[in-house]
């Protein structure tokens, strides 16, 4: 990857940031005493050494990236700092004194705040109560002081420059807003150490920019930030140092200037990863999907496009622009109010997932834990779930064919598993995604709709998923991909459709597409006039 993809801001912003980065770096090296040290930490689960003799130091005012593939031990390290896990070996020093983080409350009292990938809010309580839960502001008689909590929450939101009503219940907040509430939580108790575990996984680029602005503010106020992310360009944008783990072990810590993306990836994976790029697919095929004037009132309006056999079309846009909703409308999960969907020239009547599946459409949903997999079910059964009819005779499922099919696909997708009869829960995120893919690919779909194919997946598996999608289109399958990661969109898609507030605002061919143009369209600045 080149410099251009690391910084997609304007020239001015980049140089300003470089200046800041240097200042921060010199500051962190000049203040000799680290704010928090995790020394020789080891954590064992049964026979697995999840963390093996790892040492990491965080300085005041630095954003420190923690990188590694899924299963490298990042989450374990985060949970030790959060007080959720107790290390089996090693010690933690805060401001030079040894501390025991015996519980989440102890970690919080020590000034450590953790923002998890999945926001952990209480849907029934107000935003203000969520922020202050466990350490509510009290008034006379040890009563909870609601109005003061709302006032303080509003102050924090103002400081963050966001508009969230503190007295509303948390139910119904968008993922991005939930993340903001989590951040407000850490700010409200002046956390000295803020751990962010994949904070941007569910955010769009604009929201990420807003988050980065917050991170910079926190750094300048003297907080130490441990930043866990799979998105390397983000790390190079806001972090000063990086620590890499592999298989539970420490690989190295280095200043960001002394490394580059290739080097980091090599350290994480332990080998070179070749980024997969579709070499311009043959886009002269027949239309597999034709969407005409599709409308769902209040959600998306007047969406028309098509996808040809042998091409990957990306649906880009901000979270909430209606991308997933359009896909759900096409697949017949949500009803649409107007417009039509044609697959292979035939209109899908009585839209329902069954009708769409029979017409040859596969749908890999965004949230694999909730919608793509039955976590408690065996791997082979999960794979077979979408093809039960072809596997059964007189209504009974033939176990042998189920297993054979699962074995075939697991091998083709190089799935890493213990036994096929283990539950899907036992797999890592990337491998779970492969199971979902296997489930749909085994039906040999002509159109595959895939929502956020690589969210929360490590780099190695990510490029395998990309390679797989490219392989599919080479076999003549049409792919409609929704993705919030622009590098991914640019890397593998042949055309990019951009949605903004429920409308198809622009379309880019492979040649015209670049991050700036797509972001401009997604935020409502169209190149061409929509009549």
């Amino acid at each position, binding site marked *: 990857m080149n410099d251009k993809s690391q910084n997609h801001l304007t020239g001015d912003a980049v140089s300003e940031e470089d200046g800041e980065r240097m200042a921060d770096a010199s500051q962190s090296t000049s203040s000799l005493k680290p704010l928090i040290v995790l020394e020789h930490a080891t954590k064992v689960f049964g026979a697995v050494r999840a963390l093996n003799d790892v040492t990491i130091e965080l300085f005041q005012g630095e954003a420190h990236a923690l990188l590694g593939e899924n299963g490298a031990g990042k989450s374990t390290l985060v949970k030790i700092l959060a007080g959720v896990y107790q290390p089996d070996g090693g010690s933690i020093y805060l401001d030079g004194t040894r501390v025991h983080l015996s519980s989440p409350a102890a970690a919080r009292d020590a000034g450590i705040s953790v923002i998890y990938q999945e926001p952990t809010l209480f849907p029934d309580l107000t935003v203000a109560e969520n922020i202050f839960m466990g350490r509510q502001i009290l008034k006379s008689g040890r009563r909870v002081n609601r109005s003061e909590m709302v006032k303080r929450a509003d102050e924090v939101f103002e400081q963050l420059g966001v508009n969230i009503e503190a007295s509303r219940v948390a139910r119904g907040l968008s993922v991005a*807003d939930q993340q903001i509430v989590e951040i407000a939580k850490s700010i409200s108790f002046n956390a000295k150490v803020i751990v962010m575990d994949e904070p941007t996984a569910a955010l769009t680029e604009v929201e990420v920019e807003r988050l980065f602005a917050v991170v910079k503010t926190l750094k300048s106020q003297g907080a130490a930030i441990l930043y866990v992310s799979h998105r390397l360009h983000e790390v190079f944008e806001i972090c000063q140092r990086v620590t890499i783990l592999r298989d539970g072990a420490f690989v190295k810590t280095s200043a960001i200037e002394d490394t580059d993306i290739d080097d980091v990836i090599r350290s994480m994976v332990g080998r070179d990863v070749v980024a997969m790029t579709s070499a311009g697919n043959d886009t002269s095929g027949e239309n597999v999907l034709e969407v005409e004037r599709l409308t769902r009132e209040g959600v998306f309006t007047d969406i028309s496009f098509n996808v040809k056999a042998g091409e990957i079309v990306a649906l880009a846009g901000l979270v909430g622009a209606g991308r997933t909703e359009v896909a759900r409308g096409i697949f017949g999960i949500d009803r649409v109010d107007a417009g039509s969907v044609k697959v292979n020239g035939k209109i899908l009547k009585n839209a329902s997932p069954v009708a769409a599946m029979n017409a040859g459409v596969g749908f890999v949903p965004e949230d694999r834990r909730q919608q793509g997999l039955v976590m408690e079910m065996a791997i082979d059964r999960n794979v077979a779930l979408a093809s039960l009819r072809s596997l059964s005779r007189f209504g009974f499922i033939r176990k042998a064919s189920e297993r054979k099919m699962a074995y075939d696909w697991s091998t083709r997708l190089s799935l890493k598993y213990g036994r096929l009869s283990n539950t899907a829960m036992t797999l890592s995120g990337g491998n779970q995604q492969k199971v979902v893919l296997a489930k749909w690919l085994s039906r040999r779909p002509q159109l595959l709709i895939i929502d956020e194919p690589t969210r929360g997946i490590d780099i190695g598996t990510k490029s395998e998923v990309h390679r797989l999608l490219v392989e599919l289109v080479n076999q003549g399958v049409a792919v409609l991909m929704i993705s919030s990661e622009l590098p991914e969109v640019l890397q593998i898609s042949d055309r990019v459709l951009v949605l903004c507030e429920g409308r198809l605002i622009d379309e880019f061919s492979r040649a015209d597409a670049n991050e700036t143009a797509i972001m401009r369209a997604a935020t409502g600045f169209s190149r061409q006039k929509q009549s």
Partner: protein
Amino acid sequence: MSQSLEHVGVNEPNGGSTKTPLILKVVRFREFAILFALIVVFVATSLKNTSFASTASVQGLLAGPAVIILIAIGETLVIITRNVDLTVGSVLGLSAYLVGDLYVHYPHTPVIIALLFGVVVGSACGVVTGAIVAYARVPSLAVTLGLLYMIRGIDAVIVNAVQINSNNLPGGFINVGANNFLGIPILMWIAIVVVAVVGYFMRNFRAAREMYAIGSNPEAALLAGIPIQRRIFSAFVVSGALAGLAGALWLAEFATVGSTAGTGYELDAVAAAVVGGVAIFGGSGTVLGAALGALFLNTINQALVAAGVSSFWDLAVAGLLLVLAIAFDRYLIVRSERVLRVEGRQRGRH
């Protein structure tokens, strides 16, 4: 063409966003819905049968459910933490008998001591239940179902077919169950005081807010550093204590007790809470709602009698109300979620 669509899609919802949507008001003031239903049932029945609105009848409507209100309050606390306490009926029975037994042995016990004795008996049961659920982490449905039978069994052994009746009880004690103060039954006054105290506590104290948090999202509660076990334990102890108090008052009301007192009350308590808007999966609801739920179910029951409907229909109607209440709450959650999402989006834009 697209011009007109734009008007429908974007401008309209913005125009209406200044007022709080009706659905959110209903969610916020769920208790008013039940109060409203209560008044409708009362007025409708009174029109059909004028004696239903007589002073004596109304006092009966208020005294009858007082005991259920008390156990429904405790049940509400437990349900809010995403648990359930099925022991309350048995605890009530045990407490009623032991308080009676106290009077058999010490006839001059002051009324207040007798009531406190009931609270102590109930609390002891709550401590056992709470400890098993919170610290041994056994699902509350299984634990309390087992203890329901065990406590009832212990009750039967102790009672050993010896009934306690009004001859064993002092007049001052029986008066608590029979007399009125300012025209309202003393039993109801006690229930009102407990609703007010516990209701205030649930709204304004940290421990109570943490109970809501536990029921709303147990995992997040753990990460927020909430002492989950202690809170669940306390909820069960409070539930036991109130069931014990209810037992003593039950004895005062009926002035006789055998081994079957309070059988099935646990389901009445759960029903009252759920009809009163306490979410069965925890996290939301108020004790006021549960108390109104108990009052409502009892009033419906009496209304059917007053309207000359066969008492066989009574349980069926109660069951129907329960299903409707749960369906209504589910509908409210789904609808309000949608409204909140749209609202949040509109705020975010400007």
